[in-house]
């Protein structure tokens, strides 16, 4: 099986936020939650750079390790999914995640924490594939339909690409060779099995 990943090419992202919008719409993500966000560094300066960030689907994920109810799991495709039925909204996955990916609806106790919500790589969740429950809890299951995550499909500059990690690295390597310089990619290494 392949290992699904995202890669954001920081030398291409133009902060158009199309990925953010695509994600919110496709998955009908509730108010106040952004599974994907675009972060701009040195905003307004000559060396401004932007990156689109969501869950990296880590192969050795800290959120999976910490969850007190053990409801985060890795699929055969290497996608990290979450079962909302067992989630108690403790927030520990957010404390553990290096990328601030887990999000919380403001409807738990004292308006602070509900059940965690995060990027599903557009592959739904533990409910029956393609069912209404799956859609309302986790969003669209595009992967089951043979499609890629919509954020990457939408990206106008193809800064954000999604798919099998080996294919992504081929694409990025080609870009590096054409440009004549490396670096500036974000995401791939986290989501592949690269441990030293």
């Amino acid at each position, binding site marked *: 099986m392949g290992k699904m990943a995202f890669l954001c090419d920081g030398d291409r992202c133009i902060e158009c936020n199309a990925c953010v919008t695509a994600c919110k719409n496709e998955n009908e993500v509730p108010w106040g939650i952004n599974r994907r966000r675009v972060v701009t560094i040195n905003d307004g300066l*000559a060396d401004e750079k932007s990156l689109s960030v969501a869950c990296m689907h880590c192969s050795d*994920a800290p959120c999976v390790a910490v969850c007190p109810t053990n*409801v985060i799991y890795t699929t055969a495709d290497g996608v990290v999914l979450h079962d909302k039925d067992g989630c108690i909204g403790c927030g520990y996955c957010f404390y553990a995640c*290096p990328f601030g990916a887990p999000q919380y609806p403001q409807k738990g106790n004292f308006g602070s924490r509900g059940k965690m919500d995060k990027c599903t790589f557009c592959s739904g969740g533990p409910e029956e594939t393609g069912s209404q429950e799956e859609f309302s809890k986790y969003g669209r299951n595009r992967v089951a339909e043979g499609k890629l995550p919509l954020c990457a499909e939408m990206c106008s500059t193809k800064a954000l690409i999604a798919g099998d990690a080996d294919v992504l690295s081929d694409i990025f390597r080609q870009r590096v060779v054409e440009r*004549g*310089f*490396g670096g500036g*990619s974000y995401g791939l290494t986290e989501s592949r099995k690269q441990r030293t």
Partner: protein
Amino acid sequence: MIRPTLGGVLAALALVVLMAVSVPALADVRPPADAAVAVTPGQDIPQSLPSNLKSNPAAQLWQGVGDGTVGRVSIPDPQAGRLIQTSGMEWLEFRSEVIGFWGMVAVLGMVTALTAFFMIRGRIKIDSGRSGRLIQRFKRVEVVGHWLTAISFLLLALTGLVMLYGRDLLLPWMGPAIFAGVAEAGKYAHNFGGFAFMAGLVMIFVMWVRANVWDRYDFNWILKGGGLLSKGHPPADKFNFGQKTVFWMVTLVGVALSLSGLNLLMPFWFTSDIETMQLVQLIHAGLGVGLFALMLAHIYIGSVGMESAFDAMSTGQVDINWAREHHSAWVERYVAEHGEPPVTQPPTKGPGASAQPAE
């Protein structure tokens, strides 16, 4: 349980930006004329990188990304501008390996120590037997305050322990569906129980703080080891030094637990950085398990460990002989004020043992 190593993640983060050493001024990002290899997109994918690659024009900027760069986001939550935090891995390791492990050692160690103590020393009896004369040790409001604090404390401790150890200890035999219900109910109980605990804490503090300041009996009491190991009873006022220790421990640790708990309850209300949240979580969990282990000793001595001690917190009344042995100075003042109480219960020993209760 899988545990990501910090080193592995840091290495991955470093690789995020495969940057080179030198940082030339900002360059054009279009393929330069002297690009290393001419490729036809989509046709020949190079299998390796050429050796004459230049460094990324923004290498320095990319380098910062691994060190907690905060950028700007157009969504309302400015905190989302933080790209990477690396302390989460240390936090989760500390939580399970230090707090989880040593917390377990503390709780099991205390249970073992108390069991051993009970087997050696047995139940501490009233040496002079019961006189049948009862005196009022605690008013009703004091009894209520004590149980409000104690019951909410036990509830908080047990539900907190479910958070910390449930995944390893309960989940395997309960199965995910039942454990999810238990954990969720536990979380709500923990979140709301915190307020009952805080109310109880304020009550007992206000009622008992005056009787818990250091007094002239305390030094001697410590010297005699509280009479626990030796024979005979050192004099004490309403509370002896051991009880004062419990009082101050509960007050101080209780306040720390309440404040850190409120911070967990309302994440990012009082701080905006993740490292502080992680630290406070560790403080809360550590103090929580620690205080629970210590309170086991208090629970032991107040129930099975000492004859008649439980009366003080159930009816509020204790036998005067018990009180004379453990709180002689307090009894003297009580008798001076209220006079010797009448016999109302069958005495077990001493001059009045065969006599019927007066009324």
